[in-house]
């Protein structure tokens, strides 16, 4: 479950055994095939089937997608001398890379997320020298459900 994955990260339980590193690294750079396969299945008609290799290819594509967009967002932050990549940067990068049909729905998604949750700032516990930059715009706490 996602919670378990997050909790493992928080308590530092990532595998550090050297003989497992090869396997762990491979798993770490891809999204879980079960999640990927489920998303694929849900968008297709009921009679559709998906080969395992097709799911594996999609895993690779999804990871490359994350890396590609993150690089662009990270470059923008570097140019603007900010150290933290935030949700706006990701949305911006999607638009900059021509993935506009994703950028629009995501801005709305991010906006609603901020309305509900506010801004928690950076995940990393390192010293944040640009925490203010992540507090973009008004964050009104409205009741969820519009």
């Amino acid at each position, binding site marked *: 479950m996602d919670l378990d994955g997050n909790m493992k990260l*928080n308590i530092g339980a990532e595998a550090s055994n050297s003989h497992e590193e090869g396997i762990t690294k491979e798993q770490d750079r891809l999204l879980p095939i079960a999640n990927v396969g489920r998303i*694929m299945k849900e968008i297709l008609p009921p009679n559709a089937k998906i080969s395992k290799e097709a799911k594996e290819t999609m895993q690779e594509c*999804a990871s490359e997608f994350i890396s590609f967009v*993150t690089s662009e967002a990270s470059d923008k932050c570097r140019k603007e001398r900010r150290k933290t990549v935030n949700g706006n940067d*990701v949305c911006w990068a999607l638009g900059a890379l021509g993935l506009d049909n994703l950028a629009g729905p995501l801005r709305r998604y991010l906006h609603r*997320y901020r309305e509900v949750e506010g801004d928690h700032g950076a*995940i990393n516990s390192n010293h944040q020298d640009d925490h203010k930059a992540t507090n973009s715009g008004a964050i009104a706490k409205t009741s969820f459900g519009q």
Partner: protein
Amino acid sequence: MRQAGIYSGILSGGISGKTGPHSLPLARIKKIMKKSGGGGGDDVKMISGEAPIVFSKACELFIQELTKRSWMLTLQGKRRIVHKEDVASAVIATDVFDFLVTLVSDDADPTINILHHQNGNTS
């Protein structure tokens, strides 16, 4: 430490209004993000709490888009099973997925009739 309770609410699709496990593991997304090299070759240093959550949704939309396009090619071949060649061919046929071409080029099946002019069609 992050508030796991709030995040788990987001993870279970509360924000999108959907129920069910549509989400992707945030920790894994964050790991993949951190391994992305920037233009200057530096690792991504710091990532806000919301960035992996945005990517969770973005990846879902991306996978859906690529899957739909792959399926169109599967149907063209009068098949019902999506093969990796369909995914590869859908990548090649879509301009905005150019960044994936080298990743999938070994998998492309040249006998699959490539659909052109499908860019911008988001069914």
